[in-house]
């Protein structure tokens, strides 16, 4: 890739940029990294202001939240290609969602097109200050990796602080998640999307007063202090199986038909469409472009693993698992559930007891991964019959052999972060 000219950068910033590009190229070539973090780190060490300088004058959109960041970032990038042209949107598609990854994406991008970055929840406040985004998409907030970050409420407060100062930013926020509403509530311009929220256990305590949020049957919620669900500007209806429709308060409605499955992905797409619209792309054209996306970093692909067609899915926390279990149930194909507890996953898998594995009763289930024994005990108390096979590829093989699907449906594989990637490398 030819490095674009970078007028207006200081000598120091140019050195930092050159170092970033050189190290990224080396790391990609020798295969020690995906070439997105090492170079970025070096660049930031030489010039701590590099990120802000690289982003200056560009159209930047940020996507953050506990679940759906990578998918929504991808969908929004594809939508922006409608006017920017294929390949001209700069994005951190490998999911390196902290400043070194952002530097690497900007340094490597060969165009002056729009920038769409997935941002780690904790880095969102600093990223808003540094990158002056035109749009920020806020998906949801829930517990994740409890042995590292255990204060989602505090995160919402920090979002709120950072967005209060972002006068030129349009925030696209999930009106159904009280923590997101609190985080976005200080922003000058917010488009509220009723994007749904299946997991509510982290949203019961009111972020505004420490009182209690009460949820109504129709999705409305409120606290006695007056903090309540804002009237949505956009909402999603589900007219049929696997199909959705987004409706605007001005009467417009557009079909949401994606190649990737699930209610949560349709919600991600609508959030991305609203963000695209804030950047000048009509929502219907944005949604049309998103329909072509059939995988996101391996998620929702159906490769053959150990001779068995297998649909690969990633869930990192109870909220994510609840969505995917709802996606695969009801059904009768075998389900392989995989859990590791490396640093990237969080060392403590106690959260498995917050996942509604009871949904899998009656299904053929194989527990696998480095923490398959924690999973097997969890499934025992969920009264889900299962087998336990430590090696995840072998587990898929067992699932395919013992329960061949006569309808040609693939085995469903759901793994947490490193367990998913272990299997992905066997595609």
């Amino acid at each position: 890739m030819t490095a674009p000219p970078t007028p207006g950068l200081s000598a120091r910033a140019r050195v930092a940029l050159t170092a970033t590009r050189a190290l990224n190229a080396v790391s990609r070539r020798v295969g020690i990294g995906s070439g997105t973090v090492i170079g970025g780190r070096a660049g930031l060490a030489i010039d701590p202001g590099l990120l802000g300088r690289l982003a200056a004058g560009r159209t930047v959109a940020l996507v953050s939240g506990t679940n759906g960041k990578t998918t929504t970032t991808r969908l929004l990038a594809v939508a922006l290609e409608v006017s920017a042209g294929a390949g001209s949107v700069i994005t951190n598609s490998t999911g390196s969602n902290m400043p070194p990854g952002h530097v690497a994406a900007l340094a490597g991008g060969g165009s002056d097109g729009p920038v769409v970055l997935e941002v780690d929840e904790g880095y969102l406040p600093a990223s808003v200050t540094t990158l002056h985004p035109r749009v920020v998409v806020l998906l949801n907030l829930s517990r994740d990796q409890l042995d590292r970050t255990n204060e989602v409420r505090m995160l919402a407060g920090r979002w709120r602080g950072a967005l209060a100062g972002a006068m030129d930013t349009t925030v696209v926020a999930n009106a159904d998640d009280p923590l997101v509403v609190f985080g976005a509530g200080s922003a000058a311009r917010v488009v509220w999307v009723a994007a749904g929220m299946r997991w509510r256990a982290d949203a019961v305590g009111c972020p505004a007063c420490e009182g209690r949020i009460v949820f109504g049957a129709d999705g409305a919620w409120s606290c006695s202090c007056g903090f309540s669900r804002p009237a949505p500007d956009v909402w999603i209806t589900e007219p049929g199986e696997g199909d959705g429709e987004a409706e605007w308060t001005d009467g417009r409605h557009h079909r949401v038909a994606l190649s990737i499955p699930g209610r949560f992905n349709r919600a991600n797409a609508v959030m991305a469409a609203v963000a695209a619209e804030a950047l000048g792309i009509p929502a219907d054209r944005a949604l049309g472009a998103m329909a072509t996306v059939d995988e996101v970093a391996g998620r929702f692909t159906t490769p053959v693993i150990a001779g068995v067609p297998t649909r690969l899915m990633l869930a990192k926390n109870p909220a994510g698992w609840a969505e995917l279990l709802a996606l695969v149930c009801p059904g009768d194909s075998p389900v392989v559930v995989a859990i590791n507890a490396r640093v990237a996953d969080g060392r403590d898998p106690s959260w498995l007891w917050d996942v509604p594995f009871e949904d899998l009763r009656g299904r053929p289930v194989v527990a696998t991964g480095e923490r398959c024994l924690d999973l097997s005990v969890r499934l025992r108390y969920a009264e889900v019959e299962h087998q336990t096979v430590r090696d995840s590829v072998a587990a898929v093989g067992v699932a395919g052999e013992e329960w061949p699907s006569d309808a040609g449906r693939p085995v469903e594989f759901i793994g947490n972060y490193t367990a998913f990637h272990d299997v992905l490398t066997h595609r």
Partner: protein
Amino acid sequence: MSGSALRVVVVYPDLLGTYGDGGNALVLARRAAWRDIPVQLIEATSDGPIPEGDLYCLGGGEDGPQVRAAEAIRSDGTIVRAVGSGAVVLAVCAGYQIAGRSFPGADGRARPGLGLLDVDTVKGEGPRSVGEVVAEPLDGLGDIALPTLTGFENHGGVTRLGPGVVALARVTTGNGNGDGSEGARAGRVLGTYLHGPVLARNPALADLLLSWAIGSTEPLAALDDGEEEALRSERLHAVSRSRFTGRARS
């Protein structure tokens, strides 16, 4: 146990449920049901009164919710009354601190607990205690001898035991109370820092609590705990391996 079914009450899962703690109550309820002991699993959220119960489970929580839970449980009064008439309490992590006489709020200031256990918790000086715990149970827990305890701790508090309690166990890996001991017990109230959830990783402890709650002096009928035993032995091996190699592995 009064009435027809054993009442297992999860106390304020909306405030004290941060670490999959609802699992402890689920383990108790299933292990009772598998033995044909009639059992009722009740989730008592913080917007209503705490119901009468035979066995109360308090879990972990963040600082703010912990303070609110302690205030609400105190003003509700049901648990303290029930313990007076023989109810069993399993209190884990933040719940353990709440069951004690005092614990620190987010600002470090001491807050009153329920006084069910003669322990006081203060903010620790060092970093949070996070990681696998192995602890050897001490005598005096009852007629049933417990095997080695395994769990995962994640807390910033140091808990000092008064003369009114006995420690549950002596830690061989991890921090526990902070002085080499882990957990505390007074009568039928048992506090511990162990997550996992603790009863999933230590089914013998679950059965001890159940036998207290149903007033059984005989050991309960054995269950097929092959999966729990496999998990226990893997966790214990993982800890001894990490000590041997000097690396944190799990």
